[in-house]
C-alpha cells in the first residue's frame, strides 16, 4: 500500500462549532504574495494570548500533541471567508486531514484542491471520536485509508464518502488546470456561441473600464 493512500497519525480534538477561517488564519498573516510561513498563523488566537504568550492549555500546544496530523472538529468547520491561506497554513502546520460533520463550502473546495482531506462523518460519529479523544490521556491515533474510504480509530471502523473526482485528486495529485485546458477548444467555441447570443457580456470588464468617465473629467 502506497503512502499516499494512508493518513496515519495523532488526532487532536477541536470541539468548536462554526470555527471560521478568520480564526484558522487571522488577517495579519494574509499579507504575503506567496504561500510561505503560514504555519505560524494557524489558529493564532487559540494558540497564543494577547501578549503572544503560548496558551499551555490549548490542545495543539500540549507536548503530547506535537506532530498532530488530524483534527477532529466541530460542525461547519472553515465557514466564512474564502481565504485559501487557512488550508495552506493547516497543511504547513502538518495537518493532513480534518474530520467534521460539515465544512464551509469554499473551505471544502479549497481543502480538496490542495490535497487536505476533509472527511465528513455523521455528527454522532464525530461526537464519539471527539468523546474518546477528550477522555483519553494520550492522543488518539487515527488511520484513514483513501482507497477504501475507511477510518480506523480505537476498535471502530467507519466509512466516509468523497466524490470520485476528489478521491482521484488526492490519490493521483491531478493537475486540475491541466485537465481543464484539454477542453480549451470547447471553451473557445462555447464562448463564441455564448457571445453571439449575449454580445453584452463579451469583454464586459475591459469595455466597462474603458467607458468609465472619471469624476474629474465630467467638468472638462
Amino acid at each position, binding site marked *: 500500500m502506497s503512502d499516499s493512500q494512508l493518513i496515519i497519525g495523532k488526532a487532536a480534538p477541536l470541539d468548536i462549532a462554526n470555527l471560521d477561517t478568520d480564526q484558522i488564519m487571522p488577517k495579519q498573516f494574509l499579507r504575503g504574495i506567496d504561500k510561505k510561513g503560514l504555519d505560524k498563523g494557524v489558529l493564532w488566537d487559540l494558540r497564543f494570548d494577547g501578549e503572544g504568550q503560548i496558551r499551555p492549555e490549548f490542545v495543539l500546544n500540549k507536548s503530547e500533541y506535537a506532530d498532530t496530523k488530524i483534527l477532529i472538529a466541530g460542525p*461547519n468547520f472553515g465557514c466564512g471567508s*474564502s481565504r485559501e491561506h487557512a488550508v495552506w497554513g493547516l497543511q504547513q502546520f502538518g495537518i493532513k486531514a480534518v474530520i467534521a460533520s460539515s465544512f464551509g463550502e469554499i473551505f471544502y473546495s479549497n481543502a480538496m484542491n490542495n490535497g487536505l482531506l476533509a472527511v465528513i462523518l455523521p455528527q454522532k460519529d464525530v461526537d464519539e471520536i471527539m468523546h474518546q479523544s477528550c477522555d483519553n490521556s494520550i492522543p488518539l491515533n487515527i488511520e484513514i485509508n483513501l482507497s477504501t474510504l475507511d477510518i480506523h480509530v480505537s476498535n471502530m471502523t467507519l466509512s466516509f464518502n468523497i466524490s470520485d*473526482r476528489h478521491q482521484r485528486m488526492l490519490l493521483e495529485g491531478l493537475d486540475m488546470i491541466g485537465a481543464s485546458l484539454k477542453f480549451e477548444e470547447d*471553451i473557445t467555441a*462555447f464562448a463564441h456561441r455564448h457571445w453571439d447570443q449575449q454580445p*453584452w457580456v463579451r*469583454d464586459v470588464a475591459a469595455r466597462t473600464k474603458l467607458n468609465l468617465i472619471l469624476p474629474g473629467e465630467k467638468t472638462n
Partner: protein
Amino acid sequence: MKSKTLYRKLVESHTVAVLDAQNVLLFCDLHLMNEYTSPQAFAGLHELERKVAMPGQNIATVSHIIPTNPDAHRVIKDPSSALQASNLKRNCERHGIPLFDTNDELQGIEHIIAPEHGMIRPGMVVICGDSHTTTYGALGALGFGIGTSEVEHVLATQTLVYRLAQDMHIRIDGKLPVGTTSKDLILMIISRIGAQGARGFVVEFSGSAIDDLSIEARFTLCNMAVEAGARGALIAPDEKAIEYVFARASDITEEQREDALKYWATLRSDVDAEFDMEYIFDAQEVVPYVTWGTSPDQAIPVTGRVPIADGPQSVSIQKAMDYTGLEEGIPLEGIAVQHVFIGSCTNGRIEDLREVATVVKDRQVQSGVRAMVVPGSGAVRDQAESEGIAQILIDAGFEWRKPGCSMCLAMNDDVLEPGIRCASSTNRNFEGRQGRGAITHLMSPAMAAAAAVTGHITDVRNLGDNNV
C-alpha cells in the same frame, strides 16, 4: 420539457462540459480579483508559463489592504501590503487585465464597484476570490466566492470545475415594517435557519417583501446569504433590476437591449419548478436585529435579551458570551459601544449612507464614541458629497473616510483595540474579526447610526422622526 429553477437555468447556460454526475465545467462571464487572494494564483500561472485565457472578462481592484484615511494621495505604509498592491498592478499590466488601482478615483470594494458601473448583468456567472460574491444574485446573476486555486483556474481557462448545489427557495411575504431594512431581514433569516442553514444550497429569494426592496437593499440581502452557508443567492430580475443595469451599462446598444430584454425575461424559475428545500417568512415579523455573539446567526431583535446558555447550543452560547463579555439574560438595548463603523460590501452604498444621514441629522455622535464612515467606492463617496450627505455625517461628528473594505475585516490599518465594542454595518461578528479582542455587533446602518448618537445599542424606531 422539465421545469427548472433559475439556478439550473444559469448553470445550464454556462455549462461547457458535463464532467461527471456532480461536476460541470462552468464558463464564467466575469472574474473579479483583489490584492490578497490573487497573488499566489498569478504565481502559479507564471510558474507553468500559462496565459490568462480571456483578460477582458477579468477585472481587479485594490480593496482589502488599502488605508482609508482621507489623504488626497493614499500611500500604503505597511511594506507587505504595499507589495500586494504593486504586485497586483504588475500582474494586471502583464496580462492586460483592467485594474482599479490604489489612487484610481473610482477604486472601491469589488462588490460595490462591479454593479455600480453596470458590469453585473442578469444571467451572468460572476466569481471572485471573496465569499461575498453572492451579492450579484440581486441582479439575477449567479455569483459565488472561490479560493485562490480556483482563481488560478479561472485565469487560465475562464472556467471552473463547478460542483452543483441544491436548490432552496425562501419566500418573504408581506411588507417590511417602517424602521427595518433588508439587513434586519437577512439577520432574522440567518438567526432562524442557522449559520449553516443554507450550506450546500443556492437560495432563491422571492415574495412581496423582496419585490418591494430596492436593488441596493437586495445586494445586502444576497451578500449575507453566505453567512447562512449559501453557495449562491438569486432574485429573478424584474423591471427594477433591468432599469438599474441599463442605467449603468452604457455599452449595451439599443439593438442589444431588445435581445437582452427577451433573454432576461426567461430568467425566472418555472412555475412548477421543484426546490430541494423551501422556507416562508413573514416580513411583518422583522424588527431591527442585532447580533450578540460571535457568529452571524447569533442575532436577536434589539428589544430582546441575550440568551440563556442551555440546551444543545449551550457550549457555543457560553463561548460566545465569554468573548463578547455579555451576561445571559441582559437586554441588548443600552449596551454601551465605543466605536461605530459604517461601510463594507454589505452596507457601504449610497442608500445606506442616506439612511445614516437621516438618523444622525441634527444630532451628535456621543462623546466617547468614535464613529467612522467608509464609503464602498469612490463613486459612492463622490455622490454622498454632492448630495450633502457627507456634510451631515461630518457635522454629526463622523469621520468621513476614503473607500475600502477597512474595518469589516481589519486587514488594513483600521483595527480595533481589545475590548472595544463596535456597532457595525458589516457582515461578520467572528472573534477577532475587527481586531483581536474587539467585539462586533452586526446591525443595519440606521441602527449603527442610532448607536453612534446615543452611545449604546438603541432601537432606531424610538428615535422620533428620523426613521428610515
